[in-house]
């Protein structure tokens, strides 16, 4: 009898809690609700130590906390949640701890895919974000299976960063961008070779006056003596029969493919004009151009269509290319980043995506994080919403 009454009492309390929480969320929904919240789940081990638990139990408690937080966020109306589950740097931890975490991950992925789980409750699509090749085959297979199984879901999204760092994400994006562009160039050159076989032959050696100077048109094998573009160097595409190291006025010569005697004088006059304006300066010997920082700071330069003027070369890759190949391109930038345990640093998490996202650092350890932490953060976000949006639009 006592058990029954205590059971019905706790059930009653739970019902009241749910009712109160729904009412609270309804009130919060009168203001702006963040579309995307990112969590750095820090403090599991410290929680275990605090509670005199075995270290691994701290991570299990952290998982329970994650499920609670996901429930709260999705109920509130947040669509995207990203969690920092395992950094590439975490591989440096003790092998036993790493193995425990990997086993826990496989176990929990399996749980998430079961009937009645939170995934089905909220129509959740799962993404595993990171360098999955660094994971063992078992974990990678489980992750890929979960992504495939939830690919049709579209109500909410959970992005789990595992084997992830922002540095790795950016390096990967650059590699992918370069590979894509190189493939495009090759394809373009192949088709051009088909169209203009006579012109294409030794195009970089055919240097009489006007010369095609788009660097993207020069395939790697056709370029002779190309100077690498660095901070204070000029990139040239193709050369006349002049050697790269030959200089009358070293840098300038290299900057003007299609050089010939008549044009040199005109170029020299142009350079003198720029010298007087202060956009370039001469070196100590009075001849060589020591630095053309202002011209170079935009990127590469090239000779224009008339073979004389120096113009800007289209960059091989740009911001859009890099963003397209980011692992996190599947979601908008986070509106909020929350790091538990009071630490105030990003630890190589979403560096690219959080330039304008406020970072909140509640002191609670991750297994201690709860509803009121979320409510406090959302209220603060709502209070500053219009200002944050204004700053984002300016970016």
């Amino acid at each position: 009898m006592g058990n029954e009454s205590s059971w019905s009492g706790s059930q009653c309390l739970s019902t009241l809690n749910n009712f109160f929480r729904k009412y609270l969320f309804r009130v919060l929904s009168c203001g702006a609700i963040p579309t995307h919240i990112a969590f750095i789940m820090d403090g599991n081990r410290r929680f275990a130590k605090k509670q005199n638990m075995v270290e691994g139990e701290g991570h299990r408690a952290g998982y329970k906390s994650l499920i609670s937080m996901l429930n709260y966020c999705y109920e509130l109306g947040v669509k995207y949640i990203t969690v920092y589950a395992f950094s590439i740097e975490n591989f440096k931890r003790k092998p036993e701890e790493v193995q425990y975490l990997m086993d826990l991950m496989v176990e929990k992925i399996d749980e998430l895919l079961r009937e009645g789980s939170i995934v089905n409750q909220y129509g959740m699509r799962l993404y595993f974000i990171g360098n999955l090749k660094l994971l063992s085959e078992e974990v990678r297979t489980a992750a890929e299976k979960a992504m495939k199984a939830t690919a049709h879901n579209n109500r909410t999204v959970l992005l789990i960063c595992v084997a992830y760092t922002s540095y790795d994400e950016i390096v990967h994006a650059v590699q992918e961008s370069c590979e894509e562009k190189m493939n495009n160039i090759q394809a373009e050159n192949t088709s051009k070779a088909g169209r203009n076989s006579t012109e294409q032959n030794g195009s970089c050696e055919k240097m009489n006056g006007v010369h095609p100077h788009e660097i993207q048109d020069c395939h790697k094998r056709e370029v002779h003596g190309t100077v690498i573009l660095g901070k204070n160097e000029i990139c040239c595409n193709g050369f006349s029969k002049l050697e790269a190291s030959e200089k009358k006025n070293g840098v300038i010569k290299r900057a003007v493919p299609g050089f010939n005697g008549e044009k040199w004088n005109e170029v020299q006059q142009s350079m003198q004009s720029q010298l007087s304006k202060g956009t370039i300066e001469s070196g100590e010997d009075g001849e060589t151009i020591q630095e053309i920082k202002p011209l170079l700071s935009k990127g590469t330069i090239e000779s224009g269509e008339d073979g004389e003027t120096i113009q800007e070369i289209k960059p091989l890759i740009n911001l859009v290319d890099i963003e397209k190949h980011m692992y996190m391109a599947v979601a908008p930038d986070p509106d909020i980043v929350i790091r538990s345990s009071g630490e105030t640093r990003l630890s190589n998490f979403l560096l690219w995506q959080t330039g304008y996202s406020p970072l909140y650092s509640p002191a609670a350890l991750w297994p201690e994080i709860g509803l009121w932490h979320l409510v406090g953060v959302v209220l603060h976000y709502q209070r500053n919403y219009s200002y944050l949006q204004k700053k984002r639009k300016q970016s």
Partner: protein
Amino acid sequence: MHSLRVPSPSEHLDTLARRPSVNAPAGARARGPYSSFVSSARLGRSFAAATDVAPREGEWELVGAGGLPAGLRRDAMPRHVAVIMDGNARWARRRGLPAAAGHEAGVRSLRELIDLCREWGIGVLTVFAFSSENWVRPKAEVQFLMGLFERVIKMELENFMRDGVKICLIGDSLKLPKSLQKVFVDAEEMTKNNSRLQLIVAVSYSGKHDIVQACKTIAHKVKDGHLELEDISEGLIEQELETSCSEYPCPDLLIRTSGELRLSNFMLWQLAYAELFFVPALWPDFGKAEFMEALLSYQQRQRRYGTRVS
């Protein structure tokens, strides 16, 4: 410590420039006010009332001539401190002054910070003076700022030479007025051999653009056959960032004033493992006491870089 003066049309600014201490509770772990944001049940931003709180004179006393103040450990000082100097305009608005007055007051805070960094053995100080997004501000304010940068650098050059401060500019300098570009170039050249403190000034700077320009450079190296795709690495990108002008390109500590809790596109790559310290005080009110608090907080933090410290 030399006395530095900005010639300003409003001389009364000197009397208005007060830097009250942030009210850190006695005995509390100095971690910055936002670290216990929710647990203290204090919602919303709390601003230091700039003119309400009297400065606490003598609160931080030096231990011996030229030594560190009590509580700070020399072996745990950050090598590189970065600062987002936010709040000048708000500071001026609260006093019914034009934004220009706030920026002038901000210069004083910067001077004090440079002196403190130099005295306390910090090797690199990076300051976010003007973001690439700041170009959308009113033209008059932008012009004033450009003029202010030029004036201050010219005036301080002699002090930089005397104090061993090396100045470096990062950012899209092409957008700056030609005269300011020249001032920076001359200052960099004059101070290039100084070694006591490197002062990196970020003007017309964007963290994303910094990464993109590094990636563009690398992409061209790949295209030109000087690099393989597989050779693209984190180290390579870091070498091509604008902060490669420094021996310590990555800040250990970032301080942002005015209560904002974000990076605002500042040194996104370089701040990956930096300790972030958000201060409610507006930049013109940031002084020795606030810097002490930031350093104390930094020294108390456990930096793990993703590994486990037992």
